[in-house]
């Protein structure tokens, strides 16, 4: 499968002003996913949203972007701004009805695409109005637009595939005018090129997040990155970290930001030129350290080349280097990593320590469209894996080791509650993936609901901890022939014969659904070698697609349980 085709999305832009400049920026951006964009003629928002036979839909978009301005989309907002309404409260009431109508039209259109992105409403910053009254309840436009956005947020929550984007934050971070009245006069382009560039970058980040392509691992240097100074020279008591030293405050704030990312599922690791034992003792004993050893899932603290260490960390975590972010204060180290490992995202760090925390908070590479229990537990899961490997290294015998792990696999049909994580797994997994099929949540659910199609999820646990939902399989039944469509397993459970159990269960399910033959077409992708190797041993002959049942069995070391319904919501709408 062509990697570019696999990650190309068709995007339809619609708005009340000309959005073509955004379309061109989105198409030219080389970052994944590649986009094919059409900007519909401006001013046809309702026609496009409400009419499924509008010519704009002939493009068959996967993603719809609806970017409108409140003063143009909501006539009553314009009236309020120009003091043309009967009364301010009347304009408020009317504008909120208009906002509701708009929201419902977006919800209606959302069933035609996988994803809808709606930048929130923002009044142009040159619309100062009357400062003393603009936030006054029932009077001012600032108050009204905030309420209108809340209506959008509430109505959009009916559908998981609508994302309300925080367009106000795009303007705040811009540092130059977001609007260009000349361009509006010439071509009805409301926004300045710099705002379009920011919007394009954010939209791409959200789409990457929706496809599970966000970054997963941060690799941190220690000296002058996690703390100020060089601990090997300055000593534990003289590094700058925490109050009352102002530089120490900055590094403390940076660590707090890192800790926040770790708490929502980004893995933290260390790569530093230091003495390992001494550096780890500093991490665990310095009173102002926010991050402790238990916050990191791996480290390479030695005098080796950093690129070599990053490769070793990727191997240890079984994750691709393209999911890594490398944070190091040294321009030389960054340059070396960029040259040797261009797939690692290596941003330039700000020179001033005071800018470190805001810089990290502003990165859009960790984007996701949902947060699941898996994300909150990720660091603990990887630490449990370290424990397993240590036991293996002590024992050495694979069979005994597997027996000692007490692996349990819980199989269940795909459910609404597991859909978010299942789609995340489907889209993120490159290595143990039969077909490399990528589908968003809605499309995957729709596919699995079609007659003849079945999808199963697998939760894996052992005595060290819970791996969570780490396996996914689906098949399509035609007469007495079942075709495996997806067979995906997280790299976290590779090497434990879990894949044998997953295949054993899936083949048994296909047979009980009426299949006499189960076929598997292994896609020859750039990185799915592990899946290719596994399936190569399962066919009757090497040029056959039919799986030989003689090679399929649930290993004795694994206990497989079929899960009964367990109403545990996986998708978290709010932090709990």
């Amino acid at each position, binding site marked *: 499968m062509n990697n570019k085709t696999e990650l190309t999305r068709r995007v339809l832009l619609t708005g009340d002003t*000309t959005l*073509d*400049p955004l379309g*061109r920026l989105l198409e030219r951006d080389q970052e994944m996913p590649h986009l094919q964009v059409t900007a519909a003629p401006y001013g046809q928002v309702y026609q496009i949203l409400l009419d499924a036979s509008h010519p704009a839909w002939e493009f068959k978009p996967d993603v719809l972007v609806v970017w409108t301005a409140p003063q143009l989309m909501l006539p009553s907002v314009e009236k309020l701004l120009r003091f043309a309404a009967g009364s301010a409260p009347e304009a408020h009431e009317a504008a909120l009805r208009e906002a509701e109508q708009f929201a419902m039209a977006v919800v209606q259109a959302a069933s035609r695409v996988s994803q809808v992105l709606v930048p929130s409403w923002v009044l142009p910053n040159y619309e100062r109005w009357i400062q003393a009254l603009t936030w006054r309840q029932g009077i001012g436009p600032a108050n009204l637009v905030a309420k209108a956005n809340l209506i959008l947020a509430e109505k959009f929550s009916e559908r998981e595939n609508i994302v309300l984007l925080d367009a106000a934050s795009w303007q705040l971070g811009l540092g130059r005018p977001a609007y*260009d*009245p*000349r*361009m509006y*006069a*010439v*071509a009805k*382009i409301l926004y*300045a*090129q710099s705002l379009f560039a920011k919007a394009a970058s954010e939209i791409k980040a959200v789409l990457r997040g929706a496809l599970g392509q966000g970054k997963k691992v941060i690799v941190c240097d220690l000296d002058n990155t996690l703390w100020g100074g060089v601990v090997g020279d300055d000593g534990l008591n003289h590094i700058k970290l925490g109050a009352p030293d102002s530089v120490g405050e900055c590094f403390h704030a940076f660590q707090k930001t890192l800790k926040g990312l770790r708490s929502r599922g980004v893995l933290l690791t260390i790569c530093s030129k230091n003495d390992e034992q001494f550096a780890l003792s500093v991490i665990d004993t310095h009173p102002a350290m926010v991050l402790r050893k238990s916050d990191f899932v791996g480290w390479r603290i030695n005098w080796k080349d950093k690129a070599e260490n990053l490769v070793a960390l990727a191997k240890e975590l079984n994750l691709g280097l393209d999911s890594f972010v490398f944070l190091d204060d040294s321009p030389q180290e960054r340059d070396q990593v960029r040259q040797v490992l261009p797939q690692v995202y290596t941003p330039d760090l700000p020179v001033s320590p005071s800018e470190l925390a805001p810089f990290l908070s502003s990165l859009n590479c960790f984007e996701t469209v949902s947060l699941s229990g898996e994300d909150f537990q990720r660091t603990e899961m990887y630490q449990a894996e370290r424990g397993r490997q240590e036991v293996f290294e002590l024992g050495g015998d694979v069979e005994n080791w597997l027996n000692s792990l007490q692996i349990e696999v819980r199989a269940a049909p795909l459910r609404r509650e597991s859909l978010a994580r299942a789609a995340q797994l489907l889209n993120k997994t490159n290595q143990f993936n039969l077909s490399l099929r990528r589908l968003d949540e809605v499309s995957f659910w729709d596919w699995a609901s079609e007659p003849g199609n079945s999808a199963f999820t697998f939760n894996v646990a052992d005595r060290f901890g819970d791996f969570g939902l780490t396996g996914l399989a689906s098949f399509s039944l035609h007469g007495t022939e079942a075709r495996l469509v997806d067979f995906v397993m997280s790299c976290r459970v590779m090497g434990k014969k879990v894949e044998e159990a997953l295949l054993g269960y899936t083949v048994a399910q296909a047979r009980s659904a009426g299949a006499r033959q189960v076929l598997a077409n292994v896609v020859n992708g750039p990185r799915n070698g592990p899946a290719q190797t596994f399936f190569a041993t399962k066919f009757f002959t090497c040029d056959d697609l039919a799986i030989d049942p003689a090679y399929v069995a649930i290993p004795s070391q694994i206990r497989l349980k079929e899960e009964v319904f367990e109403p545990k919501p996986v998708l978290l709408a709010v932090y709990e």
Partner: protein
Amino acid sequence: MNELISILNDIRPGQNFSKSENFFEQGVLDSLDLTALVAALESRYAVFIDVDEMTADNFRSVTAIKTILERKGIKLS
């Protein structure tokens, strides 16, 4: 000169700008490209191009662009 060609290539890759005498009539650029070109020139040379100057005629060729930039004190070799 090379710098201008590079700016134009960023806006429309793969076009032969140095040979074209009228970008807009020859379909090398369109009116949306004109707005992108104005934004790029303003950002690169720190100039301001006013609304009445944003005409296809002022940006129809490399020579025309050099002329308007010269009027704003930017001399390109």
